[in-house]
């Protein structure tokens, strides 16, 4: 999906591989990647006994870049609800999406263990409790995100899908030019 601002780029320009941030589909694509990086430790072998600090560090660097990029994207592209009002992307979309995926992963792990399916390499270490601990450790750094996750688990204890179940937003590009230099990242 070509980036909508890229019409003057050469066909050989690798930036054609960027997602279309002017559509909610493109936003979902990049945010699914951001969520995966946030929850990556739960999928990674180093959380269940394998020593691999280099790979762990690589994921940390990627997560840091993803957070900076997420902040940049949503300063530039605003989500509009069905009444064309700008919504807070974290409260209306990103945190609910991350919470939903985390809950689905908990449900997936629980279902797998109930059916006797164990991790192929870490059968003893990768228990449901161990996975839950890593997932929840990945979400506790922000109080509101943590609360959303707890609420999502209370309502839907065994969700069945990782796909976004919330409303579909329209995208509006913010006025003015925002570059990497004038973004103040908290």
């Amino acid at each position: 999906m070509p980036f909508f601002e890229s019409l003057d780029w050469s066909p050989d320009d690798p930036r054609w591989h960027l997602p279309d941030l002017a559509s909610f589909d493109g936003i979902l694509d990049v945010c699914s990647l951001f969520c995966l990086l946030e929850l990556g430790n739960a999928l990674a072998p180093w959380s269940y006994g394998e020593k691999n600090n280099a790979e762990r560090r690589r994921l940390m660097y990627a997560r840091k870049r993803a957070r900076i990029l997420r902040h940049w994207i949503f300063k530039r592209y605003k989500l509009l609800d069905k009444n064309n009002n700008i919504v807070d992307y974290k409260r209306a979309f990103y945190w609910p999406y991350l919470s939903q995926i985390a809950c689905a992963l908990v449900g997936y792990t629980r279902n797998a263990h109930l059916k006797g399916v164990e991790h192929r390499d870490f059968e003893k270490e990768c228990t449901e409790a161990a996975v839950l601990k890593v997932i929840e450790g990945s979400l506790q750094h922000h109080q509101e995100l943590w609360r959303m996750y707890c609420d999502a688990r209370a309502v839907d204890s065994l969700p069945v899908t990782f796909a976004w179940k919330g409303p579909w937003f329209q995208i509006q590009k913010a006025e003015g030019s925002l570059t990497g230099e004038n973004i103040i990242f908290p």
Partner: protein
Amino acid sequence: MGGHYFSTPTLRDTCYGMYHSFLVGRLLTNDEHNKHAFMFLARIVAFYKTSLMGSEDPEAISSCDEKIDKMGAFSNATTATNIYAIL
């Protein structure tokens, strides 16, 4: 990578697939790819960030990277909390 393909239009499905193959990766496909997949996804994030935001500020990045490096194997929960605050 081993005949497996990472593409922006299918990125969402790739991510969902990684969750689904978390426990039974080699039962579903012919190899275990999680480690390499994270490497490729890390590169994709770096590509997106550099392409959209311009070149990275080396000073800011190295400063933050140093702080993360000093954390070692995450033995100090207080340090981990501080890093979250930085990010």
